[in-house]
């Protein structure tokens, strides 16, 4: 099937089996390896990307479903000013340990702030609840999101 979509701000067209996982298409066909596979069944969130600004688990998206959609991965997002705010916040809050969940956490954060620029603590926790981290115990990640909210005032 011919699938047309926007990938990291660029129009792309691929001819592929539409049942393939978006995760595989991103990693194999486009070499976007910042998108990680941690579980393959939508539990861990390491494969989080945005489709039309909303975070999804790319391991559970058949690539046919992104036809005519806008897909953003960490590789595209990292070029934006909003990313810079989140990046610095993650560094300053100590939110990064092994790093395997981190790009997914960043995408989940963007998805949250796009919908809700001033989230409560509970809303932050809910927004990150599909992204498992085994290293931090989450407090520093939650702190990082709060820092990003504060420093990114007006950006979202």
């Amino acid at each position, binding site marked *: 099937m011919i699938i047309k979509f926007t990938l990291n701000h660029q129009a792309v067209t691929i001819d592929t089996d539409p049942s393939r996982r978006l995760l595989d298409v991103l990693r194999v066909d486009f070499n976007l390896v910042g998108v990680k596979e941690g579980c393959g069944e939508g539990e861990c969130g390491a494969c989080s990307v945005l489709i039309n600004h909303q975070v999804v688990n790319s391991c559970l998206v058949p690539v046919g479903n992104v036809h005519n959609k806008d897909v953003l991965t960490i590789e595209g997002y*990292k070029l934006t000013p909003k990313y810079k705010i989140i990046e610095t916040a993650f560094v300053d809050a100590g939110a990064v*340990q092994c790093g395997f969940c981190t790009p997914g956490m960043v995408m989940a954060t963007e998805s949250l702030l796009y919908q809700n620029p001033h989230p409560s603590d509970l809303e932050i926790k809910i927004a990150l609840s599909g992204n498992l981290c085994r290293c931090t115990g989450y407090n520093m990640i939650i702190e990082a999101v709060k820092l990003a909210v504060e420093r990114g005032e007006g950006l979202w």
Partner: protein
Amino acid sequence: MADISQSIPKVDAYAKISGEAVYVSDIKKEGMLYAKTVRSSIVKGKITHIDVPSLPEGYSIVTRADVSHMNVVKIIFDDMPYYATDEINHLNEPILLVVGEDKEIIDKITREIKITYQEEKPVFDDSQSVISYAFNKGSIKKAFKNAKDIIEMTYETGLQEQAYIEPQGFIAYEEGEKIVLIGSIQCPYYVKNAVIHALGCSENQVQVIQAVVGGAFGGKEEYPSLIACQLAIAVRKIHKPIKLIFEREEDILSTTKRHPSKIKLTAALNHLNNITGLKADITLDGGAYKGLSSVVLSRAMIAVTGAYTIDNLEVQGKVIKTNTVPNGAFRGFGAPQMFFAIEMFMHHIAKETNQDPFAFRMRHLARQGDKTSTSGHFRDPIILEDLIRVATEKSKYHSKVSAYSNENIYKGIGMSIFLHGCGFTGSGESTHIKAKVKLLKTKEDNVKILVAAVDMGQGIKTTLPKVVASILEIPVSRVVFDYPDTDLVPDSGPTVASRTMMIVGGLVAKAADELKSKWIDNEEQTVMKQYVQPEYIKWDESKFQGDAYPAYSWGVNVVEVAVDPLTYQTKIINTVSAYDIGKAIDERIIIGQAEGGITQGMAYGYLERMVAKDGKIMQKNLTDYLIPTSLDTSKMSTYILDNPYALGPFGAKGAGELTLIGGAPAIALAIEMAINKKITKIPVTPEYIMELMNHDH
């Protein structure tokens, strides 16, 4: 100079946040093939036949028949084959690899391979003891003869899965005569030595490189050696790069976990209601192969008295073999099981004898100069009372204990007091590891740290350069610490046992001191250091006598919970911790370790349930094996109290494992208070709470 504890940005954070950090699954090589493992579908028995379909051009299978030298993973006991022999000892034991270019074709071949077995009766009970140790302290007979009270309890702990978010994986390829392996590993030299042992080749024919590691927690200590050996054999046969990445389910079903335990404790109390003697009988389920079980057992046994001093001991321990997936290293390494048991026991003894549990525990605290469980000595100052004061004050422990003691509040607060021996048990550092480190100053006056220590998230990539930069008084940016490559770095030992900062960091600091003293601008210089055990440390491995560890880190956790009396679910309300890790090399990194550690420890205590039913792991994925999400954690407050250790860099001791150990007993004690029932096993699941609450009502 600024206080070393003052935090700096982690040097690898930017690459990780932006997705640029290269994990093993992200690596591609020209002409690379993929491998998939075919595993046993029975628990115990013999392979009678393997029926392989005719393979298309370019596809191969690799089995034990391809092993020309040793088909065992070199760990401690040489009992675990990396390609199953005819004898199958657990479900999902690796039998062969299918290797080729197209994953669809490989997948098809694996489904077409038919293996026939002759099944045998598996063993799951404790009838097969494969390792047993015992030791004594003082005179246990006398203590029990003169006892006013004798109290006995048995405690049980379950399996725990490391659940690193990045599954296991390797890529291996040939470079001339050499085999190069890049993997998600904790111990580059363990892998290297295992591959040398498997191939029977010379040292310079194996090169091991660490990729960025997406979490490990002990799970990537010994297990990766098995995959490395399989791949090395495959690469020698096929002569092309091969990549093998585990699926999550495969990872959970076939890799090592925390040993389940059963611990029977019997205490003798004198007329002052003090413990004069303790008997302990510790059983660990090692699974189908021994692996590291002997050292896990040692650590559990040595931790028998917890953070307390008890004069007379009789300690016996054994590892039993069962036909389940082998258990192995996991952050804490035997200590979490023992600390759960002893902390609950101290509380239960106090309750049983109508004493205030807090006062009872305080009376037994270990003090400087006391004899350890193995009749060594606590030589260094112990600041446990300060830790307890900080943790209880910040958590309002005492007022909450009285508030929650009333019926029908269903809230509880629990405290654990614990220690962790830093570094290898006994004289392992001097007899087995013999760590070497190297500093290389370039002509440009940049300094390279050459050690085999792995950053698996704990931040050593930042903290080691910080130590060197502080000593040399140069910016951290001029200190380079690349991911270790065994062709470039000496063997500084494995990244385990809370040893990296204290032992490897200590050597690096010594090397930096020397480099500073002989520093010549714009000249290449190298300094090498090797570990020398302090003279006064004496350890008799056969008798478990002497100083089991060069130093101890200490901690106190206070956990507050609410239990829903209708659903029996536990919610963590607050956690407060205080630690003595000597000196934090970077406070934020340590607090991050501490928060992650207690989260894993508490989850071990109440949330993470893994059961092997007739040898089959029932929770085989992250849908069924539940680890905490952001909504399962509470606010955590962590206090680090300085108590510098003379031989550690800037006074640092071990930290990584310590922070996990107290989580389970603290939360179990909190739940015990909330439901006013005696808890004797973990995880304290809602199902278990229901049983307890509805018992004798």
